């Protein structure tokens, strides 16, 4: 039976702590505004005051958090310095985008509550100002008409309406601007838009600058008013509230004085804002470093390989970089997995030509031309990164299962090449004792370059006599009638007489139940890392299998599932 806690426990803990802090802040600040100081404010607006201030506190907290998961360089730095930490903690850093989204949903939720509560506040303040009879609301609204500082009702005249007030106060205007920015950010971040029209998502997302500016200046107007501390001592609300007609005339109850709360949000968000600015500066500085394209290789099926050199570039296996080509587009950065090993003297990426930017890059690198290109004709590139992903952890497990589906096979190119180099150098630090590699694709045509790599590895290992170190299976999941006929007529031998290996190319999808069972049987008591780069459906399936085949006993076999995502 599964040990779900091993795989998911820490993530769940983080989420629960975060939710707990949100709930605590909400309840705490709700109660703060039930205090005596705000008695008269609540006379005017009722509970809506607390309902507006409580989500505001949660908004402060969440807006502080939202910038942190997207500081890529900071996270890579933490990851690197966390080598001594348990694998579990570094795995949490892989889920930064998921956390960013969760915090964003929470911000949207609290914004909704905050706005609705303030709608009631505005309406009730307006009603109070429009009072004709001498009610307490009328009296309270009249306070501060002579001097401009000790008023309670932020709406100072009865010849206006809430909409007008909303657009003429700092709080109202900044609130509307921030909310509009938030709505535009959210609608352009929907999965459909993000996956198909990345540029819309990316550029609209920069409206967060407006959001944060609006957020910081939102409280400058200090329109949430409460009694000053000294006034509470002189005019106690529970005694004097009923005597509102005599305030100022009776010595016990002078006219209450009010003041506003100073803006607090900047204290919450200044730290992350500074960190984020720093992050962007680091990205900019890194992008200015000189990058030289040393080799361009065109592979069949619209794949372009770029080999580049950059001074001081250090990478780990399975990392990715962001590439920019100023001659193609000044503003666009696109992520690509590194396909070279750290032991090589250059770094390379394999780019599939699927869209505008990649097509233009292909042409800029002389992809169409047949003749040899001079090195200086190649376009200048800018590289940001490398950024760490789950594959870095591959060498920390004794046994690893690598599953690459379709284009997801690319990070494993780096892993396998690195394995090859370490093997070549007789590197005893090579921890994995056994690698199981599964390659799922419709057809191998698109990734011939990868098949080539597999063959080289295989030859290497054969020469060393350790053919069992890497076990790989290729699954071709696309097939048709013609191919089926081929399979039956042109059968293959079970063992290749040259290599002696079981080089089966299998058809259809793997039976994961069997695979996991076999591997668990082969390696009892081991910690087995399962690495996937592929579609969500497969991730769910593998995740479930990992949990199901992990022993509840801590000494038994454990499958730890890691997913890459782009």
């Amino acid at each position: 039976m599964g040990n779900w806690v091993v795989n998911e426990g820490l993530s769940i803990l983080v989420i629960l702590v975060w939710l707990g802090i949100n709930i605590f802040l909400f309840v705490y600040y709700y109660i703060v505004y039930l205090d005596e100081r705000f008695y008269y404010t609540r006379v005017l607006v009722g509970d809506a005051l607390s309902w507006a201030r409580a989500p505001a506190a949660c908004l402060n907290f969440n807006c502080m958090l939202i910038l942190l998961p997207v500081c890529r360089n900071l996270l890579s730095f933490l990851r690197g310095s966390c080598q001594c930490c348990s694998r579990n903690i570094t795995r949490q850093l892989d889920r930064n985008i998921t956390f960013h989204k969760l915090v964003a949903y929470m911000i949207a939720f609290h914004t909704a509550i905050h706005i609705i509560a303030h709608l009631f506040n505005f309406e009730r303040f307006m009603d109070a100002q429009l009072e004709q009879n001498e009610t307490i609301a009328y009296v309270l609204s009249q306070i501060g008409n002579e001097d401009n500082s000790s008023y309670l009702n932020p709406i100072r005249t009865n010849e206006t309406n809430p909409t007008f007030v909303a657009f003429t106060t700092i709080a109202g205007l900044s609130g509307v601007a921030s909310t509009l920015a938030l709505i535009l950010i959210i609608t352009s971040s929907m999965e459909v838009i993000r996956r198909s029209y990345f540029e819309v998502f990316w550029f609209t997302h920069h409206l967060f600058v407006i959001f944060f500016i609006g957020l910081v200046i939102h409280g400058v107007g200090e329109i949430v008013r409460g009694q000053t501390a000294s006034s509470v001592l002189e005019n106690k609300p529970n005694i004097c509230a009923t005597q509102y007609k005599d305030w100022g005339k009776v010595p016990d109850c002078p006219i209450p004085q009010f003041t506003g709360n100073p803006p607090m949000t900047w204290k919450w968000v200044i730290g992350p804002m500074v960190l984020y600015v720093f992050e962007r500066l680091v990205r900019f500085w890194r992008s200015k470093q000189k990058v030289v394209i040393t080799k361009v290789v065109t592979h069949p099926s619209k794949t372009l390989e770029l080999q580049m050199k950059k001074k001081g570039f250090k990478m780990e296996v399975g990392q990715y970089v962001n590439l920019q080509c100023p001659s193609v587009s000044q503003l666009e950065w696109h992520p690509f997995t590194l396909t070279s090993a750290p032991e090589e003297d250059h770094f390379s990426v394999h780019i599939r030509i699927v869209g505008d930017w990649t097509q233009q890059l292909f042409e800029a690198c002389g992809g169409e031309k047949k003749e040899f290109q001079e090195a200086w004709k190649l376009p200048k590139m800018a590289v940001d990164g490398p950024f760490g992903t789950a594959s870095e952890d591959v060498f920390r497990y004794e046994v690893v299962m690598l599953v690459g589906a379709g284009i997801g096979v690319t990070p494993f190119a780096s892993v396998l090449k690195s394995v090859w180099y370490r093997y070549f150098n007789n590197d005893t630090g090579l921890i994995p004792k056994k690698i199981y590699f599964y390659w799922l694709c419709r057809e191998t045509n698109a990734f011939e370059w990868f098949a080539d790599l597999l063959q080289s590895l295989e030859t290497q290992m054969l020469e060393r006599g350790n053919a069992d170190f890497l076990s790989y299976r290729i699954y071709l999941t696309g097939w048709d009638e013609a191919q089926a006929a081929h399979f039956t007529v042109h059968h293959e031998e079970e063992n290749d007489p040259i290599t002696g290996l079981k080089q089966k190319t299998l058809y259809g999808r793997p039976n994961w139940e069997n695979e996991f069972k076999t591997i668990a049987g082969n390696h009892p008591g081991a910690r087995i890392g399962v690495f996937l780069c592929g579609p969500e459906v497969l991730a769910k399936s593998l995740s479930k299998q990992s949990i199901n085949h992990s022993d509840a006993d801590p000494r038994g076999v454990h499958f730890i599932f890691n997913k890459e995502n782009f």
Partner: protein
Amino acid sequence: MGQIEWAMWANEQALAAGLILLTGGIVGVAGQFKDWQFAAYGIDGESLIDICLLEYPRGKRKNKGTSIDRMGQRYLTICVKAFGPLTRNYFVRAGLHAVLSIPGGFMLPTVLGCVCVAIASLIYLLAAIRGEQWEPIMPQVESKQRPGESMKEPPSNPPPRPPRRAPEETARGCCICQPHSHLCQLCLRAPPRGQCDQGFAQSNNCCRL
């Protein structure tokens, strides 16, 4: 940015804006704000029409193959399609949204919805200027032929092998290509002697690409 279909984003924005307008209208009515009658009535009615009928069915993507439809949008697609050029043309939609947004400006709860619908209208205008049109996502006719009704799943194991025969020639061939079957596992075609017909040259007993 050649491949962007602005209409997709306009659709998301309009749907969100409709919901915001609706929420604002409900707040206005529930809180019995001033002017709630004429603003809230129009808004709740109009935003319902906006959300349910017009924007919910997602249009088909022009450029790429797969269009993802929203859950249960099939019936509404038929309704929206029935209006023909009125719903297909984005200029009409832009104008419609612009007009629908106006009543929202009259009371505070719906002002936000008003501005959001106006923005959606602007994006639709941009889409219309670029010549985009709304195409319905119709259910696909299953055109792929499955080889034989009896094969429901692709085979998960290699086919059974006949008994081994003595090799007629010296074992030459790819480490991936199997010498007896002459089947290159990469191109899946039977290569003619000495070379894959995909142009993979053989050298050192290995298929090299």
